[in-house]
Structure formats: structure tokens, C-alpha cells
């Protein structure tokens, strides 16, 4: 059998964004997989050193295209910690609602990608249509559909418009009524079971060694979520559960997503009931003159893909000195993916890659 070199290249319908893998195959089995990131490298960390603290804030959301709100939240939290700013209570509740809606949208996007790759077009298009309703809600609240630029250091940018809470509750009830349809056509489908069971299996010890976080770790049976380990915003005031599964393969990971969507809906409903009245923005000093004292900090947030961290250093000036994002896709895409692809068949490349929740812009920044 001859050894061939295939390019699973950046323009591929089964690929997650602009990311390419070089596969060395023999017949139908993969011998070695070499990832090639770098198509989306924009040099954000260097560009952010040349602009003020407030001018940086439209840049941050463009690092992760699928779920931009968690990036904005982590940048705002880092600046607030360095400068000792207190955020008003109502702003914390609004931020939690926005983050959970973004998590729902991101999980629906992941469900679309996976179902589309396997060939289930109908539930994939349903997921995209439901995500569109969430983007309509965001357009009402913030003024843009994808890059919201809404959570800034000091609070949020504008207050809730009239009638927003009723629209959110209506949407959540409508989604809950559609869940049996999703279950029948996709999650409890025999074909999905056959294709996803025992593919990309990770053992519990390996997951801990390889520093996996997010669903990849929870599908192997470890109960670890940053929202419970180090609660930020109002996660210590609402009650929710952390779903886990035991097997650690692609099937478990997808089912963990489905359970997490249910938990997110619960959190949003509780937040809307408990939200106090008050102001939502604590005015910051003049952006052209504001200087933050020397220091460094590391903040972390649970995004829909894993643990998202930001290490920020300030030198007492007008601009940040060093900004380093720790993104979950960097680890999953460049370290875990080649190890899982060894010995798999070509038909499962897309399967394994999308079930690990790799998003290409997060790798390159």
C-alpha cells in the first residue's frame, strides 16, 4: 500500500473556518496528521499595545467569531480588576443574560456544523433558524447582530429596551417546545448513534494530562466548570447543574451540549426574575487621558468551548503593555486533534474535529 499525502485544506465544506490539516494516509487509515494554522493571524496582541484601553474594546470581540461576548466579558473583567472599578448590580445581571444567550447561540451553531457534516440537513437548518431568532434579540438590545461591542469596562453600554424581557421568555418557551422534535430527528437517531459512538475516545487520565477543558473534559466524567469553581458575575446566586457523561467519545460530547442548552435556559429565566433596578453604567475617566496603575492579572471565564483566560500586564500608561489570550481551541486543535486522528479513517476527520469544538479564529488570534 502506498503512502499518500492529502491536504484537508482551508476551503472545505466540512472544515471549521480557515484551518488546514496535512494528512499522511495509507489506504483509508491515517498515519499522521499535521495541523497548519495561520490563515487568520491578524496579530491582535501586538495591535492592542498601540491603542488606548477604550479603543481596544471594538477589537476584542473579533477574536472569536462564533461567540464574541465571552471575549468582551473577559477583557472588561481584566481592566476592572487592574483599575479597581466596581460594576453596578443590574449590569451584572444583564451581562449574565447576554453571556448565556451567546452560549445558546454558539451551541446551536455547533449543532448545525455537526449535523451538516454528518448529512442531517433538516435539524441543521432548524438549529440555524433558531439561532437567527437569538441574533434578532441581540440586534434589539445592542444594535448589531454578530459583533455586539456591548460589554465595556464599567458596566454595559445601554439599558434594556422596553418589552425585551417578554421577548426573551417567549423565545425560550418556543425553543423548549421544539426540543422533542430535535430529539426525534437528531439526538435519538439510530444513524447518529452508529456514526458517533466510540469515535475519538479519550480516557479520563489522558484528558487531565492533556489539559482539556470544557465539554471535552466533562464528557469523560470530570465535573469541572469555572462557573462553579470561581464564580464571577451572578453565578453564585442562581442554581444550575453541570451535566456530565461517562464515555468520552463524540456521542457523549454532543449529548453534553444538548443538556447544557437546557441549563442555560434555566439560568436566563432565573436572572430575569431576580434582576434589580438601578443604573447600568459607571462612567469611566476620559479615554484620552486615563492611566491605569502598574500591575498584572489573570482572569478566566467559562466560554462555550472551554476555559478562556486573559493575562494582562499594565505599565502605568495609557495603553496595555502585554495582552495574552489563552483560548481553548489552541490546545484542542493543535495538541489533542493530531493524537486522536492517528489511526482513524478519513471519513471521521470532520467528525472528530467538529466534536472537539475547534474554531479557527481562536487558534490564530
Amino acid at each position: 500500500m502506498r503512502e499518500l499525502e492529502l491536504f484537508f485544506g482551508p476551503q472545505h465544506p466540512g472544515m471549521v473556518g480557515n484551518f488546514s490539516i496535512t494528512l499522511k494516509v495509507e489506504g483509508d487509515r491515517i498515519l499522521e496528521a499535521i495541523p497548519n494554522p495561520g490563515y487568520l493571524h491578524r496579530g491582535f496582541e501586538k495591535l492592542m499595545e498601540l491603542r488606548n484601553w477604550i479603543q481596544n474594546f471594538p477589537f476584542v470581540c473579533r477574536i472569536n467569531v462564533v461567540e464574541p461576548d465571552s471575549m468582551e466579558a473577559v477583557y472588561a473583567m481584566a481592566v476592572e480588576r487592574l483599575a479597581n472599578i466596581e460594576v453596578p448590580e443590574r449590569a451584572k445581571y444583564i451581562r449574565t443574560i447576554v453571556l448565556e444567550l451567546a452560549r445558546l447561540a454558539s451551541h446551536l451553531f455547533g449543532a448545525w456544523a455537526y449535523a451538516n457534516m454528518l448529512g442531517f440537513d433538516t435539524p441543521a437548518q432548524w438549529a440555524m433558524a433558531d439561532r437567527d431568532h437569538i441574533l434578532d434579540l441581540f440586534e434589539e438590545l445592542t444594535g448589531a447582530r454578530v459583533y455586539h461591542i456591548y460589554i465595556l469596562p464599567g458596566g454595559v453600554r445601554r439599558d434594556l429596551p422596553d418589552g425585551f424581557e417578554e421577548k426573551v421568555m417567549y423565545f425560550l418557551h418556543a425553543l423548549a417546545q421544539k426540543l422533542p422534535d430535535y430529539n426525534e430527528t437528531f439526538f435519538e437517531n439510530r444513524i447518529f448513534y452508529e456514526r458517533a459512538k466510540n469515535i475519538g475516545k479519550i480516557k479520563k487520565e489522558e484528558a487531565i494530562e492533556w489539559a482539556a477543558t470544557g465539554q471535552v473534559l466533562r464528557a469523560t466524567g470530570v465535573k469541572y466548570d469555572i462557573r462553579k469553581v470561581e464564580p464571577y458575575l451572578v453565578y453564585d446566586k442562581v442554581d444550575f447543574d453541570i451535566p456530565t457523561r461517562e464515555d468520552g467519545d463524540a456521542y457523549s460530547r454532543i449529548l453534553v451540549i444538548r443538556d447544557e442548552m437546557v441549563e442555560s435556559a434555566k439560568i436566563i429565566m432565573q436572572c430575569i426574575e431576580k434582576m434589580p433596578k438601578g443604573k447600568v453604567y459607571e462612567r469611566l475617566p476620559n479615554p484620552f487621558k486615563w492611566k491605569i496603575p502598574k500591575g498584572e492579572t489573570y482572569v478566566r471565564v467559562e466560554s462555550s468551548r472551554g476555559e478562556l483566560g486573559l493575562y494582562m500586564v499594565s505599565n502605568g500608561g495609557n495603553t496595555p503593555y502585554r495582552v495574552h489570550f489563552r483560548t481553548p481551541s489552541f490546545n484542542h486543535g493543535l495538541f489533542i486533534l493530531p493524537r486522536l486522528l492517528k489511526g482513524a479513517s478519513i471519513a471521521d476527520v470532520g467528525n472528530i474535529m467538529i466534536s472537539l469544538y475547534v474554531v479557527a479564529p481562536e487558534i490564530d488570534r
Partner: protein
Amino acid sequence: MEKELKKRIKKIYKNTQVEFPEANRMVIKTKQENLLPILEFLKNEGFRQLKAISCVDWIEEKEFELIYHLSSLNSPLHIMVKVRIGREDAQIETIIKIFGNAQIYEREIHELFGVKFRGNPNLSPLFLENWQSIPPFRKDFDTREYVKKKFGEIPFVEEKK
């Protein structure tokens, strides 16, 4: 629990400072020769996940600072181990024998800052292709000058009346 850890580290290793700047964060500053023993020790204590390796360029003090972020599943503590190395001919020993996934972080830092990691088998470029200048994330690399040199002076577009 953290205070105990601090006492034990200070007893064993010399030239090390341990601080607690915020809640749930511990910072250990040490020298290059103590790095691998401290990381082994922390891994045996339960801090088995290496989350990231960052690098900061302190150009006025002529040093690079490498920061290793570690965390554990049993406690909410997040440890940052910091090491300083000189800026000219920067080199340090690799840690892939202790933490396997350090390989990709070291590859990124080698490409963007120019730090050599002795013992790492694969330090080929990750993001950039055919790069001829100095490593781009250093503080003496000027992005605007580079753009002008490489792409020529592109004139600003004026509105035609």
C-alpha cells in the same frame, strides 16, 4: 492550604519568592535553574494541568519574562511561575518531559519572540510564512514602518466631488 504550600516551597528552593496578590492566585518568582524541579514538585502536589505559557518583553530591563500557568482539578488555586532570562541569545530548557502540551506553546513563543528552547524537537514556524524580519512581538518591531517598507506608500483615498 496555600500557606502550607508556600512554606514548603520556600524551605526547599532558594532564591524563590511566593506572593498572593489576589484571591485564588499564587505567584512564584524563581531562577532558571530551579524551574524544572519546582514544576515537578507542583505536578506531584496535584497541579497537573498546564494551561498556558506567556512571554513578556521588558525591553528597558533587557530581559524576557516567561510565565507558566498551572491549575488543578481539586482546588480553585491558579499558580503562575515566573522566570526571567536575558534578552540577547535567549535560551531555556524545555519542559515537555513534565507537561506534554507545552510543545505547542513553546513553538509559538519561539516564532513570535525568538526564544530558543533546548530539547524541543519541533520549533518550525506556526503562523507566519517566509518571514524575514526580527520576531514580530518584540518591542523594537514597528508595525507601521514594516507596512510602509513592504507594501510601499499606499495613498489615502479622497472623495471625488
